[in-house]
């Protein structure tokens, strides 16, 4: 499939300027769109999380703030203006820098983390043909770029000049690096079955055969291992030891306030969106409509398939997975650091390796 | 307190203790024997006072005579005893923190608030008040200090009442 960059380049190629400058424009425009998408995502995700948390805790959440006169009150969309209120508050808060902290590192560490998220978005599709750049090493690129954030975490903890932040940063770095191994191993399954690392090929394979999660019992198990590992990777409960509120105040993010903290926030929710999108298009069929599984309706318009429907299906699957992640957060207690590491190294990695071996046998036999 | 307990203890420590019926407690007249008495009531098979409930210091007012009241209970034999040791100022009572660990913090508190000294205590320092506080507040002749670390202690309440 073509990519957005190609499309834009072709559109503006009639302007009579140097091709390199045209290429520059064709690259910058999607980048800005992606950034706007991340900002929108964090605004909506924060509101969504507050409402989900509130309804699970038998209360109502934001109810008062409204926009243009629409307040909502006790309805499920109550307090919709909280989206803008939170954003404005975060952007205008005072920026406190503790004495003795490393100023340069404190300034750049949030940006390293969000850079990791932004770079990953380049390889993620939004539907058939709507991908910023269609790498032929798609999946590998995504896994690699999502690891860039670890450096930012360690720098953030170190530069705060605070024993507790350093603790949190070390735990977080160990956690992220350890859980990348099961993620890589489980994503490798579809590469073996489908034969290509390219994202468009993966979804095309799922269109021809079936959704990968239903392909074999091993891929079913792999989905759950993948999902729990990404919950650990994005530092969400039950794996949120680095941000453990009752122990370390806010872990490695304690000393950051105002704009820098909102950048951290943005990167956490962007990471959640990224991993949900990856789970959706690797295991759950991407932009294919669920009705294709059952093969009931032969006519294509009843299948709800197509360009715009594709965006809808992909995002609804991702949002459902994000909802499940939030559901976990408000239900489970958190694991201790050594139990976390035990789960990764002694449970997930052996299972993923066994999975990998068994699915090759499955492919050979069946 | 039953007669049996009192008889049991009196047999061992005839001269050092005195049972007072109106106060319903045992007074230890000879504080030097206190550690022996305490070890006896902990280990003896008919007594077995394994649970130290409370240590209370009190000030008798006249010429700074202090007292320490100990309340014991036996969880296995279900009986209760109260023992009091009354001393002058500057006499040390032996600490029973090695026998009952509950006494550790209670004796620290009694020292903190009254100034009664306990010998052989593993960790004698103030517990409720700051380490640099002067004086022992619960004594009857205690006067609030005028300054604490340079800050004047308010005594004239007309400013806020």
């Amino acid at each position, binding site marked *: 499939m073509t990519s957005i960059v190609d499309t834009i380049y072709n559109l503006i190629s009639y302007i009579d300027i140097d091709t390199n400058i045209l290429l520059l424009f064709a690259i910058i425009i999607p980048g800005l769109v992606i950034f706007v998408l991340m900002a929108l995502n964090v605004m909506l995700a924060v509101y969504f999380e507050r409402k989900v948390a509130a309804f699970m*805790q038998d209360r109502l959440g934001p109810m008062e703030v409204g926009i243009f006169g629409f307040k909502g009150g006790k309805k499920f969309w109550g307090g919709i203006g909280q989206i803008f209120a939170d954003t404005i508050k975060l952007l205008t808060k005072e920026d406190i820098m503790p004495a003795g902290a490393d100023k340069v590192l404190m300034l750049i560490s949030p940006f390293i983390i969000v850079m990791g998220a932004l770079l990953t978005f380049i390889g993620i599709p939004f539907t058939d043909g709507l991908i910023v750049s269609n790498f032929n090493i798609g999946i590998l690129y995504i896994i690699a770029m999502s690891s860039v954030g670890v450096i930012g975490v360690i720098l953030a903890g170190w530069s705060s000049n605070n024993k507790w932040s350093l603790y949190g940063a070390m735990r977080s770095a160990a956690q992220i690096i350890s859980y990348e191994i099961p993620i890589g191993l489980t994503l490798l399954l579809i590469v073996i079955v489908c034969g290509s690392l390219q994202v468009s090929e993966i979804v095309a394979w799922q269109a021809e055969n079936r959704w990968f999660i239903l392909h074999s019992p091993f891929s079913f198990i792999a989905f759950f291992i993948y999902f729990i590992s990404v919950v650990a990777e994005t530092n969400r409960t039950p794996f*949120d030891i680095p941000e453990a509120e*009752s122990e370390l105040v806010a872990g490695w993010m304690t000393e950051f306030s105002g704009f820098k903290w909102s950048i951290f926030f943005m990167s956490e929710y962007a990471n959640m969106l990224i991993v949900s999108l990856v789970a959706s298009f690797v295991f759950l069929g991407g932009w294919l409509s669920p009705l294709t599984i059952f093969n009931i309706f032969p006519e294509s318009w009843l299948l709800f398939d197509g360009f715009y429907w594709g965006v809808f299906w992909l995002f609804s699957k991702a949002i459902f997975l994000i909802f499940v992640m939030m559901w976990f957060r408000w*239900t489970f*207690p958190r694991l201790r650091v050594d139990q976390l590491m035990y789960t990764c190294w002694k449970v997930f990695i052996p299972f993923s390796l066994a999975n990998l071996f068994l699915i090759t046998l499955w492919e050979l036999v069946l | 307190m039953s007669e049996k307990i009192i008889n049991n203890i009196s047999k061992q420590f005839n001269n050092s203790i005195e049972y007072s019926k109106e106060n319903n407690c045992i007074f230890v007249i000879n504080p030097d024997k206190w550690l022996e008495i305490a070890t006896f009531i902990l280990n003896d098979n008919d007594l077995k006072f*394994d*649970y130290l409930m409370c240590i209370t210091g009190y000030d008798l007012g006249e010429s700074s005579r202090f007292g320490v009241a100990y309340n014991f209970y036996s969880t296995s034999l279900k009986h209760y005893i109260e023992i009091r040791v009354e001393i002058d100022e500057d006499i040390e009572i032996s600490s029973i923190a090695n026998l009952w660990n509950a006494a550790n913090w209670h004796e620290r508190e009694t020292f903190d608030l009254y100034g009664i000294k306990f010998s052989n205590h593993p960790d004698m320092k103030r517990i409720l008040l700051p380490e640099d506080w002067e004086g022992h*507040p619960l004594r009857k002749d205690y006067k609030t200090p005028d300054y604490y670390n340079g800050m004047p202690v308010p005594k004239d309440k007309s400013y806020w009442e």
Partner: protein
Amino acid sequence: MFKVIDKSIISADEMVLNMGPQHPSTHGVLRLKIITDGEIVSKVEPVIGYLHRCFEKHCENLSYEQIVPFTDRCDYLASMHMSHSYSMAVEKLLDVELPERVEYIRVIIAELQRIASHLIAVGAFGLDVGAITPFTWTLRDRERILDLFELLCGARLLYNYVWPGGVSHDLPSKFVERTKEFLDYFEPQIDEYNQLLTTNKIFIERSADVGVLPLNVGVNFGVTGPSLRASGTNFDLRKDEPYSVYSKFDFDVPVGEGLMGTVGDCWDRYYVRVLEMKESVKIIRQAFEGLPSGDVHEVLPKKIRPRKGEAYSRYESARGDVGFYIRSDGKNTPTRLKMRSPAYCNLSVLDEISSGWMISDVITILGSLDIVLGEIDR
């Protein structure tokens, strides 16, 4: 697999980590000096005294009736127990015989207060371990109990209700009906909490086998209440030394059995509290059946002037064995009033049972001991 590590193998530099007085998870202003080599704790030293309000010195200048609000403020999560225990000590010196209705009302109030205090203990323990939702649910149910108390005496947290010689107000007309409604609503809720938290695998991994308190160590340190009963004994003052009218009621004393791990671990301390809430519901129902009529102000003295002497009263509060030691000279103010607080002794055992565990476990153990700094510091 998560056992105490042999210290002789590790020889790293030890550092002092300070969980300062302001911290989201120490229950009140408590400072913990933790000596650790990075993650494993070798010694924990609690530093208390940040909430010391000179309660005992004040009581020497206040008359006996004026002390009752002060006793409420000692353990503010179980205020009825404090004032009940104080009233019992004063009544020993006054040598009065209370009317039956007063005793029954006091028992009902005490058991409702026990449920309220255990709800916070259970919820806050979940919060320490990381589960945030059970805390909001338990607090929602505690609000109903506080509404009942507000109906009774006008206050939600610090009641000034149990006076030496009686209680301040009789039960309002709707109280019995509303309490029965609450009890019918509350009993199935305990099963909901069990589903969410008690049998949760992650919760069990965090709290089972952690911070085991052997029984003889506990008795030696003076630990009482649910924290001691979790270690295997059924020592409960309501059964062993019955006071008030507890001898008339039929209830069990939950004992820790080590269902999910060793006897006396944090899970046991938590589960004993959950079971105690069920027993309290039983007691309240029996008390309503046998509630006699009468005048609650019959023996309420106008001026309290006890005889010369000393009295020590013992009472089973939500946290353990509360004692009030009062020395009186015949005047209308006590010469010496000492409050033996259960959380004081429960906290002193923290060092003993948390060496060898990790820093996260220190918080779990502290949460399972259920302390309130108000009664530790007085």
